[in-house]
């Protein structure tokens, strides 16, 4: 790439870091006095024929992926979904106590789990059925998967911090989440 003067580099950096298209005035507010138009023209030319282009929309400028590369991306972004509190707690209980039945999980959490919670964890590929327990009713037990370990960067379940470690890390301080939790979580509608 051809060397750039620092003013043009600054315009380039500001456009890149901006979270919305920028007008010439707002660019100038960041980079100070200078030939903003000239810098934009230079950048637009530099980036023509690259994987990303500098484009003008109305009076604002921004970088965008080259049109012919769109098939590699998807326009409406696949949003990363965060696990609900109920799901993360359920996952933690399964990881620490596996194999566990649903009743075990409910006993430890002190709240019923809704049907969708385990579905989400299985959908994510982190939890799997792990056989039935040989007691009356033969309830299904659950355990974690290889991809659970991979996702959380664990070699084995033994790498999970124990209760003493959690206490030392300040993670056992009671937090008033219990009530919140009860209010948020809907009662189980059965399956």
């Amino acid at each position, binding site marked *: 790439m051809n060397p750039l003067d620092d003013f043009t580099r600054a315009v380039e950096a500001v456009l890149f870091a901006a979270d919305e298209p920028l007008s010439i005035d707002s660019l100038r507010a960041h980079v100070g006095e200078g030939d903003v138009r000239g810098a934009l023209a230079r950048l637009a030319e530099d980036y023509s024929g690259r994987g990303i282009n500098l484009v003008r929309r109305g009076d604002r400028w921004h970088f965008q*992926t080259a049109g012919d590369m769109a098939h590699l*991306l998807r326009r409406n972004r696949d949003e990363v979904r965060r696990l609900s509190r109920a799901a993360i707690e359920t*996952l933690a*209980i399964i990881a620490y106590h596996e194999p566990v039945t649903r009743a075990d999980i409910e006993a*430890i959490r*002190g709240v019923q789990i809704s049907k969708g919670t385990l579905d*989400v964890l299985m959908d994510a590929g982190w939890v799997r059925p792990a056989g039935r327990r040989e007691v009356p009713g033969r309830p299904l037990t659950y355990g974690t998967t290889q991809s659970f370990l991979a996702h959380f960067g664990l070699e084995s379940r033994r790498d999970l911090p124990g209760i003493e470690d*959690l206490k030392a890390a300040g993670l056992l301080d009671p937090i008033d989440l219990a009530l919140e939790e009860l209010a948020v979580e809907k009662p189980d509608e059965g399956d």
Partner: protein
Amino acid sequence: MSGEQLTLDLEGWEGPLDLLLNLARAQKVDLKQISILALVEQYLVYVEQARTLKLELAADYLVMAAWLAYLKSALLLPRDPAVEPSPEELALRLQLRLERLSAMREAGARLMARDRLGRDVFRRGAPEGLRRVRKANWSAGIFDLISAYGQVSARTRPVMHVVHDREVMTLEAAIARVAALIGTAIDWAAIQSFLPEGAAGSFRRSALASSFLAALELARQGKLELQQRGPFEPLYLRAPA
């Protein structure tokens, strides 16, 4: 006295080692060349000053002071070859610890001074985002996981209530006792005489209450008779005539 340099800012220290390191730095030499004796002296003066100013020193500062005082005398006295480890080794150990803490403190400062992502350098502000290969992309990190477990445990771990072992006499025991003793009582006897010998305090009160209930029960069964002259008067028991 070399005390004029000392500023007694105890709030700032993170423990005796931290204080020692700061004193050592005041010697303005490489930690390898540090004079441990001078350092020990400075620390002891510091702690002594804090004491005369009646500043409250955490116990570990005093423990360190005691240890350093020992080290000082060991370094000054003629060497006793039977004492292991030698005072020189102890001094060396202290110097090595200071060097290590100092190295990490500097490393931390250099780390913090780097161009940090989100403060000095930035990723693209509005990335288009990529198609996910996986159907759903659930996000959770190891910290979410273990802190969730911490919270579940904190919330549901049984709280232990310790009930002091209170001595009581149960109603069953009182019935058995009164029933057994009433046969030997020829005449009216005050209820207090049915209590176990030596009963005192709360146990006596418990035994009295249970024996009273036992007497009522046994009277109902026709196994004894009760007599009382008036409210709050002594209560007498005897076997049925």
